[in-house]
């Protein structure tokens, strides 16, 4: 008899909601056949059958939320291939998803890496590789594990004095409305705390006169090629990152190296109903502005509709937080660790500006805030970085030249 447990799908989840069972008791299942859909803090995922067999018992009700490690259902293994085939033919109950063969990602990883993943119950197919050609290396597995362990340590953080203070033991919680501090909220908190405690953040501010860019956008719209400013920002950003690769790197303290990554996956900080989530626009350097625009919108929609899959959330190398549409003219954003920098883009306002020939004019001025990891880069490098980016924003022709 094999227990199918809720395992960590790879994002450091601690619990998950059982959404749908694809099987019933008595069903004959093949190895890797999807059994149940689970909603975690961030994604919905399928658990599949570890072995071929018969579903003997379902232990959890649909809709229940269970902790990682909880047994969900029991399968009686069938070793004999012929018996399995016979049983499957006999099985009158249709497997809801027997047709849908789950697309398994082919993962590059050395046997040793696979071993450590297996020993630690990490599903290697869910790990994003940072090695050559996307190979999963030992550190990637350890990174997944690292996040798994951290929340426990964090929860021990408040000192005894604080906990015994009246603020925390507040006698009448009923007088205050409470909202659950769990799920995605808690995960955001964990990540933010982790980032802010380990990374010495520095934030600098800059502004760009995007008047010409807005004009160009209007011109493009007129010829039937509309794009959002965000897509343009990302294209310009990738070009800037290529020239200043330090900001596309990851610090590997254990091995004493800064790993400069040669792929450009831009995280898009997105305000979703359940809270902040950062889907990743992959390989932005290989995509046109229009493609970026389309994919960005799709990722945002998925975030709103809670349809993001694990893969959509992994592998980011740099994060952009476009709060412009919401307002704000400046911020001190927290870096999306282990990345090196995060760029927040704020509101564009019409403002008086001084032109090159000392005349007053009206321009569209956008502000931005760039937080970076001072362990990896210094202020001068960060300013050079934004200067270059601003240059591409202020004079769209320069960007076009880069694209040619």
């Amino acid at each position, binding site marked *: 008899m094999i227990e199918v447990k809720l395992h960590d799908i790879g994002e450091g989840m601690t619990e998950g909601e059982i959404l749908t069972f694809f099987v019933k008791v008595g069903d004959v299942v093949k190895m890797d056949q999807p059994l149940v859909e689970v909603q975690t803090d961030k994604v919905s995922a399928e658990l599949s059958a570890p072995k071929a067999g018969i579903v003997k018992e379902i232990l959890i009700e649909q809709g229940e939320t269970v902790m990682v490690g909880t047994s969900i259902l029991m399968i009686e293994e069938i070793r004999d291939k012929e018996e399995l085939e016979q049983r499957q033919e006999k099985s009158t109950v249709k497997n809801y998803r027997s047709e849908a063969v789950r697309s398994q990602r082919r993962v590059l990883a*050395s*046997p*040793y*890496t*696979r*071993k450590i993943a297996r020993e630690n119950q990490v599903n290697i197919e869910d790990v994003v590789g940072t090695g050559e050609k996307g190979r999963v290396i030992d550190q990637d597995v350890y990174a997944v594990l690292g996040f798994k362990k951290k929340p426990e340590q964090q929860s021990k953080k408040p000192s005894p004095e604080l906990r015994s203070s009246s603020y925390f033991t507040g006698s009448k919680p009923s007088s205050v409305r409470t909202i659950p501090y769990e799920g995605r909220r808690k995960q955001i908190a964990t990540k933010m705390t982790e980032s802010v405690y380990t990374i010495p953040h520095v934030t600098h501010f800059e502004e760009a006169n995007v008047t010409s860019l807005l004009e160009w956008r209007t011109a493009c719209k007129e010829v039937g090629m509309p794009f959002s400013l965000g897509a343009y920002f990302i294209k310009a950003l990738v070009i800037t990152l290529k020239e200043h690769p330090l900001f596309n790197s990851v610090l590997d303290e254990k091995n004493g190296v800064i790993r400069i990554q040669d792929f450009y996956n831009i995280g898009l900080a997105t305000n979703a109903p359940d809270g902040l989530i950062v889907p990743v626009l992959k390989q932005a350097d290989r995509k046109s502005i229009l493609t970026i625009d389309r994919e960005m919108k799709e990722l945002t929609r998925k975030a709103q509709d809670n349809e993001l899959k694990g893969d959509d959330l992994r592998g980011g190398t740099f994060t952009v937080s476009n709060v412009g549409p919401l307002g704000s003219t400046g911020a001190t954003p927290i870096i999306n660790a282990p990345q090196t920098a995060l760029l927040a883009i704020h509101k564009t306002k019409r403002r008086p500006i001084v032109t090159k020939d000392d005349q007053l004019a009206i321009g569209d001025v956008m502000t931005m805030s760039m937080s970076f990891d001072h362990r990896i880069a210094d202020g001068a490098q960060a300013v050079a970085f934004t200067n270059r980016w601003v240059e591409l924003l202020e004079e769209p022709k320069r960007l076009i030249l880069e694209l040619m």
Partner: protein
Amino acid sequence: MEATKAQQTRSMTMVQAVNDALRVALEQDETVLLLGEDIGRNGGVFRATDGLQAQFGEERVIDTPLSEAGIVGTAVGLAVSGSKPIVEIQFMGFVYPAYEQIMTHVSRIRMRSLSHYTVPMVIRAPYGAGIRAPEIHSDSMEALFTHMPGIKVVCPSTPTEAKGLLLAALRDPDPVLMMEPLRLYRGEKEDVALNHYETDIGKATKLSEGKDVTLLAWGAMVAVVKKAAAAVAEEGIACDVIDLRTLFPLDKDTIAESVQKTGRAVVVHEAHATGGLGNDLVSVINDTSFLSMRSPIERVTGFDVPVPIGSLEDHYIPSVSRVVEAIHKTVQF
């Protein structure tokens, strides 16, 4: 006491150690006989049998006609009827005429006779490139013999191992082929014990401890591998250097233990790559240690051509730089 201890060893080259082993064997056991071309008065093409005929007589150190098949066939007859013949093949490349005898009789009589007869003989054959010998003289054909059940194959890399393996081979009830690396015959000298001692057949030896890469070699390639390990040590790569010593049966435990620790392996031999013993080592690692591997196993071997003559040999034999390159490949994978 100290003085006698000092007398118990003498500095020897590998060929002198072989000679010493033969002398010890002839002294200790009357049934030991030597057979080979020019091994008597001449003392052998490499002087491995120098002085032995003078000491032990023509009945025990026998000059044979130029007929490898005849020599080995005679030795089989002697071995099954109570003698312990040690055959010298002048160069391993000359063993081919005797291959039929080895394949069909030397290696099989024990099985054919259901162990009523064993063939306690030793075949010594200098092998390998590196001394600018003419064509055919430089082959490394160990794979022909490790593929043949019923015969053990040993290969020393030092004078001490040469003597110890030869004496162990002689005591073994079954036939043993000892491949003696030509290139090392008169290379380094070493203090070798003068008494009888044996080096276990079937046991590899670890020459240095390292956590990063396992280097597997035998015979003349051990020196190359040691130099490569020293070169990469400066970059901070620590190698487990293993001298296999016995090529059949392989010491799988030592190989597995090391590779499971390092997760990487480089196999070095001067024989041809295709069908070479290196492939068996890759299989051993695959069978025993797959889940420990961090990178594919690298092989550095001779090329799939006859060993070329003259200075072209240098391009054929695995060099230190080729081994270093292979180590880098495994580490940077």
